[in-house]
């Protein structure tokens, strides 16, 4: 079978794949042939109706101005963590901490791929492949074929500090494809942080295997870079009694699509995914898309989707979320909440909540709302002397609060709230 992708002129292709070791080369070839069969996303695809894939699949990315954060310390700077730095998608060993920690194995993807036998072999592209159902994600397949760098992390204990992926953007034309693989072994715990502008265009896949009784906590900050065009994918497999929690805060960004596919395969597991996005289209476009699929294939598991978006000045928000409950997944407790707060008439929010349930003894529900600022609350605050802009921001933070509450670590949650508060304050001028 030919593995060459039939590409159209002017679009990305998986023909010229990066050199890598044997198992990785095989995985890349497999991905390339899957992509050939699948094709790149088009606007005719059901899950690409509201987000134009054009800028993500053009051969070259649009340039993105390197964001000047004017000396503001990067998010999480006060959190003690193991730092792994990528500059325009290239791992920077000098800027990073040593790749070791108690109960941790960390390697660059390229190093791991050159080893004949490596645990990452059983996950790289494997969880991504499994995650192509219920809905195809061609840009993740493209990533598996073409990823240029990334880390593989295996956790066997309970490291005392989080692993922190820090992205730096220095080249206004960088087109970055990163692929991380994370394996949290039975009973182990990992907190993963991510922040920083990564590239002009960014395609990321993170495959996460959370074994029996293990815990994975993920907190990600996207922003404040304005020109960002990013598509990120998380593919998680969650085994019995394990916990998977992921939270993303997003500020600014021309186009951000965060996909997450979670397969719950073991009984009594917990999977939560949450997001808080602030979008103002006044100076730059803002388009933010959360696309989430959670599959329950085990008994008595709990899943939560909590997505909040605050939009104004033509900012656009999209939510596509599905809970699929397989026939044997009895006692499933699934809840999906996607809400947007539109601060003016120009902003828009489109939501497609889906429940597909084949088991009969389940509790599953969803709530998708679009609303404006609560005028009663606003008047109450103003009547106490709080000027409208400050009162509005208080209500914005309050609206985002239940997404932020999904972060378990109090210090990290406080950091996220503090940042959002500071960013709102800055915008007030």
């Amino acid at each position, binding site marked *: 079978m030919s593995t060459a992708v039939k590409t159209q002129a002017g679009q990305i292709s998986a023909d010229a794949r990066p050199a890598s070791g044997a198992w990785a080369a095989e995985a890349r070839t497999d991905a390339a042939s899957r992509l050939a069969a699948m094709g790149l996303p088009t606007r005719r695809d059901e899950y690409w109706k509201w987000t134009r894939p054009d800028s993500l699949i053009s051969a070259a990315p649009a340039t993105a101005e390197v964001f000047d954060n004017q000396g503001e310390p990067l998010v999480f700077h006060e959190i003690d963590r193991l730092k792994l730095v990528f500059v325009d998608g290239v791992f920077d060993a000098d800027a990073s901490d040593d790749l070791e920690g108690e109960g941790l194995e960390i390697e660059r993807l390229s190093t791991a791929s050159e080893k004949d036998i490596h645990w990452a072999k059983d996950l790289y592209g494997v969880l991504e492949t499994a995650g192509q159902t219920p809905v195809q994600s061609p840009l993740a397949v493209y990533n598996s074929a073409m990823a240029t760098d990334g880390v593989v992390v295996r956790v066997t204990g309970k490291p005392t500090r989080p692993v922190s992926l820090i992205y730096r953007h220095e080249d206004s034309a960088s087109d970055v494809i990163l692929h991380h693989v994370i394996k949290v072994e039975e009973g182990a715990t990992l907190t993963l942080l991510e922040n920083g502008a990564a590239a002009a265009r960014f395609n990321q896949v993170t495959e996460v295997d959370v074994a029996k009784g293990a815990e994975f906590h993920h907190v990600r900050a996207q922003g404040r870079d304005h020109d960002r065009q990013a598509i990120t994918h998380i593919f998680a497999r969650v085994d019995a009694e394990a916990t998977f929690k992921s939270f993303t805060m997003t500020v600014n960004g021309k186009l951000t699509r965060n996909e997450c596919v979670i397969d719950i395969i073991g009984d009594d597991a917990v999977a939560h995914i949450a997001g808080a996005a602030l979008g103002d289209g006044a100076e730059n476009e803002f388009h933010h898309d959360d696309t989430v699929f959670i599959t329950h294939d085990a008994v008595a598991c709990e899943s939560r989707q909590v997505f909040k978006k605050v939009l104004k000045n033509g900012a656009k928000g999209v939510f596509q979320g599905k809970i699929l409950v397989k026939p044997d997944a009895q006692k499933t407790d699934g809840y999906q909440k996607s809400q947007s707060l539109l601060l003016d008439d120009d902003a828009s929010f489109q939501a497609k909540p889906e429940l597909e349930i084949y088991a009969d003894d389940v509790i599953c529900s969803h709530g998708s709302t679009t609303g404006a600022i609560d005028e009663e*609350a606003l008047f109450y605050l103003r009547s106490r*002397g709080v*000027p409208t802009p400050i009162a509005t921001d*208080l209500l914005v933070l309050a609206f985002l609060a239940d997404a932020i509450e999904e972060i378990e670590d109090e210090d990290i949650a406080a950091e996220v709230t503090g940042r959002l508060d500071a960013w709102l304050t800055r915008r007030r001028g």
Partner: protein
Amino acid sequence: MLKINNLHVKLEEEDKRILKGVDLEVPAGKVHAIMGPNGSGKSTLSYVLSGRDGYEVTEGDATLDGEELLDMEPEERAAAGLFLAFQYPVEIPGVGNMTFLRTAVNAQRKARGEEEMSAADFLKFVRAKAKDLKIDADMLKRPVNVGFSGGEKKRNEILQMAMLEPKMCILDETDSGLDVDAMKLVSEGVNALRDEGRSFLVITHYQRLLDHIKPDVVHIMAAGRIVKSGGPELALEVENNGYADILAEIDA
């Protein structure tokens, strides 16, 4: 302190006149009460004075210490010293009561060109005021009015009043939904704030609140106007005979 002159107000959305020429003056240091049957316009008067949307002033004016109130934004009125204790305090999920209080206190100080209060000073200040009103630490931590009982909500209103130290306080049916003990507590909170530089306008249906907060003057409002004014004995008359006699007397 507060001067209302021939105030006419209608609803913005429909052609419904609610206030039809209210004249009222509350001097500094005095407590005035407004009583009146349902629908007489009492709450509308409090909302119009505090700047709520939805009303249109068609005639007349209102001043606070000579400043034209009705041209100001609600937050400017607050900074000028006006405070409305709501009949139905608003619940604000996600905003901690303490954050709310600190934001309000500092916003007003800033508007008046004063220094913002430090976190430590604020904490000391709020704890002392909260203690007087038997408001515990938990109530300060919880989101504003969320899950508060009726009595807790009203105590929280008085706490805000105590923190903001306004010069003109309007209490809109602060007694509604209160049991006897809560009414006593709230009244003590109000009485503690009585001062020669501070005035009160107490809107109520019932005389019983006025047993605790002794008014200097009682006004009867009916059909959008103040129809009768007198001393505290007027409230007793209402309590004993209802509004019918007074209204009949006026119609005659």
